[in-house]
């Protein structure tokens, strides 16, 4: 398009009279043809902008002049300030990451055999609407590792290195001889040889009990040793049953770790419960207290809280990049095609390695394209709405808020059209410098 316009620029052969333009059309005729477009532009673009500006100076009901109150609200309302902060994060990170990824993809795909196929795949998310992408990523970031792929991967990696324990939710029941201690449980009384100890807990779901757990049996006292049982003191459908003693159908906590702790807090002996929940400790544990250490009760790892207050904005930016990296890649690849090969060859002949060629030759040559892509994305990012609206759950929508979303909320659900208009005007002011930059850039391109 640029080249076509440039070709049209040299003056036509005959341009004698001032009343006719370059192409020889009368101004009146030109005006007539322009009229429909102008009317439409006026009605659909200029008038709404003008009315928004006017509306932003009126109060909520629209019948009283509010001066700059609405604009004051822009910088005092907590919600709008969060939105503003998030918008800045968006404008800084989303376009740069998308462009950087696009650049990497474009340069790399040039060198692979199946480059076009790869490009097609990367570009594909562009064909999906923002709404659909939002729904997809809502699922990707789901907290439940069985649903959300992000957490599935994360939990998978985590669990490879750290196993969760067998009895995550076990806790003492009524009148328990145990009390909480350092994330585990400890007996309130000391234990002595020749006597038996009971360590009953409740709250382990039947399907989470270790597979080798057998019916719990009461331990028999042995001279010179401490014996005892640790088991689930809960009978299905009956509650605790006999308190503090194993009922017929109650299961032992197979594999539960038991430590004997002396008064100084040192572990003097430790053991593991057998499959029927019984355990034996040597004589040196005499006078100690028994502890079920925290390692027995470590809760299963639940993954990352992607859509919680802290990570929600980066997570949504991630989904944006997924969509728009393809767009950046295609534009940059087009620019790359126009880069003269000789320059790259020359650099290689001069002994530059690939990184140097990329850094010192390719990127500078692509700079104008990169700038256009980044700026286009910036404009796009300033008005981001749908992704945030859909991906952020209600509870963290406030933390993920951006200006366009706040505009919608103020205007359509809180009945504050004045403040909403002020936000709209403010957004327009933010876009204008970026737009000017882009227009000037385009002009320069045309002149070249």
């Amino acid at each position: 398009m640029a080249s076509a316009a440039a070709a049209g620029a040299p003056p036509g052969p005959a341009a004698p009279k001032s009343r006719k333009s370059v192409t020889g059309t009368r101004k009146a005729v030109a005006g007539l043809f322009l009229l429909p477009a102008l009317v439409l532009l006026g009605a659909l673009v200029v008038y709404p902008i003008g009315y928004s500006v006017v509306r932003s100076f009126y109060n909520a009901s629209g019948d009283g002049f509010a001066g700059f109150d609405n604009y004051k609200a822009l910088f005092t309302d907590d919600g709008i300030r969060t939105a503003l902060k998030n918008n800045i994060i968006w404008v800084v990170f989303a376009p740069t990451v998308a462009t950087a990824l696009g650049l990497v993809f474009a340069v790399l795909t040039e060198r692979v055999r199946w480059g076009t196929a790869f490009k097609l795949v990367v570009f594909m998310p562009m064909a999906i609407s923002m709404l659909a992408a939002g729904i997809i990523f809502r699922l990707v970031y789901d907290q439940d590792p069985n649903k959300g792929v992000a957490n599935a991967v994360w939990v998978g990696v985590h669990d490879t290195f750290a196993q969760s324990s067998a009895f995550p939710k076990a806790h003492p029941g009524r009148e328990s001889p145990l009390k909480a201690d350092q994330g585990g449980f400890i007996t309130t009384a000391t234990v002595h040889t020749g006597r038996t100890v009971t360590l009953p807990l409740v709250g382990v779901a039947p399907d989470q009990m270790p597979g080798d757990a057998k019916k719990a049996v009461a331990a028999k006292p042995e001279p010179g040793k401490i014996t005892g049982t640790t088991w689930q003191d809960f009978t299905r459908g009956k509650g605790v049953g006999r308190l503090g003693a194993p009922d017929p159908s109650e299961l032992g906590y197979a594999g539960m770790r038991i430590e004997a702790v002396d008064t100084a807090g040192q572990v003097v002996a430790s053991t593991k419960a057998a499959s029927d929940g019984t355990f034996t400790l040597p004589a040196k544990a005499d006078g100690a207290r028994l502890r079920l250490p925290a390692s027995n009760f470590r809760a299963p790892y639940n993954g990352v809280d992607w859509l919680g207050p802290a990570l929600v904005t980066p997570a949504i930016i991630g989904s944006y990049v997924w969509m728009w990296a393809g767009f950046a890649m295609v534009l940059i690849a087009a620019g790359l095609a126009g880069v003269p090969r000789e320059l790259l060859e020359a650099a290689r002949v001069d002994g530059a390695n690939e990184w140097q060629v990329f850094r010192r030759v390719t990127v500078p040559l692509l700079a104008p394209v990169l700038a256009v892509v980044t700026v286009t994305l910036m404009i796009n990012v300033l008005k981001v709405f749908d992704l945030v609206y859909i991906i952020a759950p209600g509870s963290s929508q406030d933390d993920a808020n951006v200006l366009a979303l706040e505009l919608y909320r103020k205007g359509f659900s809180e009945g504050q059209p004045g403040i909403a208009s002020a936000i709209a005007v403010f957004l327009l002011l933010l876009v204008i410098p970026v737009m000017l930059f882009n227009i000037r850039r385009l002009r320069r391109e045309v002149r070249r």
Partner: protein
Amino acid sequence: MRGNSNTIQTHRAVSTLAALLAGALALTACSSSDHKKDNGGKSSGATAPGSTLTLPKLDGATLEVAAVWTGTEQKNFKQVLAEFEKRTGAKVTFVPAQDPIINFLGSKIAGGQPPDVALLPQPGAIKQAVDKKWAKPLGADALKELQKNYSPGWQDIGKVGGKQYGVYYKAANKSLIWYNAKVFEGAGAKEPKTWQELLKTAQNVYDSGVTPFSVGGADGWTLTDWFENVYLSQAGPQRYDQLAQHKIKWTDPSVKQALTTLAQIWGRKDYVAGGADGALQTEFPASVTQTFTGGDQPKAAMVYEGDFAQVNIGDTKAKVGTDAKVFPFPAVGSSAPVVSGGDAAVILKDSKAAQALATFLASPDAATIQARLGGYLSPNKNVPDSAYPNEVQRTIAKALVASGDDFRFDMSDQAPQAFGGTPGKGEWKDLQDFLKNPKDVAGTQAQLEKDAAAAYGNGS
């Protein structure tokens, strides 16, 4: 008060519909046979067999009725309208409206074509319609029918400035706790009647290895409904009304007490499925389905919400009445709370036919037709229990009618939308923060008061 809480309303509309599908199918057969039998009734006009209601003959009259109902709910309501057509000879058209219906009506009225009758979902919306001089008061016949069938409480919320404008045709009971029957059986737990018993039941369930509660905290309105039930039962109806109108502050000791009580459940580690963070990312539908999937090892044993939760239970394999049971929200104070919602018919274009329709909707005849089709509750005390298609629906309806005048309308629905009806704002957000940090009662109260003052202050 402005518009209504969109999200809730749409949600509930959607919910209620789905529930009814089965019932509707079963019943189409019966109703069509009725049609044939009664064909001659039209000429005689007046009283249909077995009815106490006398309706005028309205051959040639046409009526438009607007409501936000869709799907099955709309289909069922149309059967009620068909009965009206049959009895009077008038022609009734259903106009599907969008949420918020008050804005929809505004554009219709601006265009000079208001529907004759509209079903408005909140007391605030009725007041708004009256303030804008859209609504017309009920005539003598409709009034008589209303007084005969409705408790004074249900009449009063349809009044504005002492005049009767609304007929509460449909109600919702939001004081219910749904539970997984298998879990209760496994834990040896019983349906609690008081808050203390509820805590004991919860402990029982927890000891059996199942998390007691599922909370759909991603939707703020489930949390405001929790709070409303506790507050209504603990602080009593008078204070509830005062707080709803913001005549007492949220920093009031009664609010502190209610929040502290709530924290006994919200604040207990492992009492809420997924913990506070997990609950805050669980939307209402998921909070229901996760309670009724997974056999006797679901993610949670109990979930609090209104009768519309049935729809979501319908998405699981659990059967309402056997696998999924329900008990009324236990009494926190002296008596059990009944928090409700509902849709009121309001006349926008006064005519004999419109008055007749309002009269009909106030009668047990109309309510009985829709009650049979399921997924519908009527505040009409003369609707026979036998009209409801199953035991669960009957229990819910009984609890609603038995509450007499002690029921209260959903508080957040009465509040300005900026406070009571916007995701991530006002009461929704503040209670979500409270769920996350249940120790901070004073901070939550201060924040609630700050948001309430801002929302009530700007004249909505």
